[in-house]
């Protein structure tokens, strides 16, 4: 299935060079887990701090489960903050 992967802040460099607006469309197995996608793009696990699917937070224990569906947006940040 196809999902959109977005890697933000310092993780943006790990996306393919042709990516735009910090996003790329990737083909993943139907039962792919967020952690498999995280590993596929060589995101160091501790840097995958904030993991969202369609804007909803995915807690660390759910990242090992096949929670992704076709056309989902998986967005990932290292620890960040502002104000």
């Amino acid at each position, binding site marked *: 299935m196809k999902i959109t992967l977005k890697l933000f*802040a310092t993780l943006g460099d790990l996306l393919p060079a042709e990516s735009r607006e*910090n996003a790329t469309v990737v083909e993943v197995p139907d039962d792919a887990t967020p952690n498999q996608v995280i590993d596929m793009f060589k995101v160091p696990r501790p840097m995958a701090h*904030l993991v969202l699917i369609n804007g909803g937070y995915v807690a660390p224990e759910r990242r090992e489960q096949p929670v992704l569906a076709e056309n989902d947006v998986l967005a990932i940040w290292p*620890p*960040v*903050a*502002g*104000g």
Partner: protein
Amino acid sequence: MAWTNKVMRVNLTEGKITEEPLNMEWAQQYLGQRGLATKYLVEEVDPTCDALGPDNKFIVTTGPLTGTMASTGGRYSVVTKSPLTGTVACSNSGGYFGAELKAAGWDMIIFEGKSPKPVYLYVHDDSVQLMDAGDIWGKSVWEADEILHKKHQDALIKIALVGRSAENGCLYSAVVNDLHRAAGRSGVGTVMASKNLKAVVARGTKGVGNIKDPMRFLQATEEGKRVLRENAVTGEGLPKYGTQVLMNVINESGAMPTRNMRETQFEGAHKISGEAMHEPRASDGQPNLTTNAACFGCTIACGRISTVDQGHFTIKNKPEYWKASGGLEYEAAWSLGSDNGVDDLDAITYANFVCNEDGIDPISFGATVAAAMELYEMGVITNEHTGGMAYNFGSAEALVHGVEMVAAGEGFGRDLALGSRRMCEKYGHPELSMTVKSQEFPAYDPRGIQGMGLAYATSNRGACHLRGYTVASEILGIPEKTDPLATEGKAELVKAFQDATAAFDSSGLCVFTSFAWTLDDVAPQLDAACEGGWTTEKLVELGERIWNMEREFNRLAGVTGKDDTLPKRLLEEAANAGPAQGKVNELGKMLPEYYKIRGWTADGVVTDETKQRLGL
């Protein structure tokens, strides 16, 4: 002790300056800066006074760690009664001015009355003088800063001052220091100008030398710096992306207030994000971001210095804006950008330059333009009102028109200068004002971040993110992740953030350290610097005491529990996109519990018992 133990009192009506010792008994109870200056305010100012009248006081205050070697120890605050909200106002700024004032040997300056003619205060250590400001009145912050530097022939003076917007009575004018740092919110600059006080010029050569235990202070501050350095947020994220790293986070989370908070996601968010500020522009191949910058003593350096493309319509024939200058923080990028539906990064950067140049709070300004755009699209505000400019959402031209008009105090700018609440009332649609206690919202939609709804509703200075930033927990997972859509536990969370922030704001340190530090990291630094046995527990209690003191001032000023609410839009109109789609803010579920844990009555009044417990 890290206090200088000296307060300067400036009677502007009589042109008289006196010196008095800092009330050390109060310093033990209220520490410094926000807490201690607010204590002076509540003791000396009638809460019902006209904020722009001579009876209001205007206090410029440092904290005990201001000017020391503690990381971020350069903060100062302005404390007064706000003309925008009618509540207590305390606005905090970084840069270099605060540390310079402290190095000149002053904890605090209390301005009273009103000068018969424009003046500025010149402080060079113990030598202090009110000087004629006739030649800088009517000038922008940037022009006046340059004139003062030339006049005093001293590159090392640091200046805090107001621009033309404040002189013209814009109700959300800021006090700007070091050209692009500001005590931004609640119209503190408007109060300064109402006193005919244009600037405070500081030059300090004394330093802060009276630390209680210098060796222990050195160790404690070094340890604090290590924590900041090794933390991914303060060591990496903030220096590289600034607060603007949040643009995509909040947008993806569906909590991005868009087009006067009608929507909760902005399709143009990426174009105005921290990431986009690093990308080379198509037009000139240069990125918007030129470099990052630090305030005095700061080892984080989150500040943005930006350059607008010289060919951009905003600055095409204006070489004075071709230099690098203070760039976008997240709050400004949101208010000038998403809230107006504008995705032109250079246009909002220019609007931000003008906010710095003439001392305008970009949050309140941008949010007021957003309300004007909604009224324009409804046909309530017309070209006749705006002077021919179409105020449609998405119009960068309208944004630029608005900011230039507010800066100059001309035309439609006079309506925008009222702030969203008064402007919407003037045009017969108060429900379109996205404000709490007449202060405009910052950049987090409380339908998607429930705790922020409670934090806004109960904030002592009207809608504000810096009074209790539960976004840290609800979205960013700092110190631990909570569910942004849940209401359970939010009353405790909001209280904890509000109290801790009040303690940070009273220390002289920047609240952004709290992304890596807790009060456990602050206490050893304070305790090594100051007498009084400053423990985490004492700081938590200090924060709670300050919060309740501010609340009481507001009650006496006529701002009460009935004002602890949100605009109808956020309580009744559901979020249109993102994880919060279909949800409103459920303030009613959180507020009674919050009052209870605060030790207040069901109407939100501080009880005698609570006052007694906190020594109020």
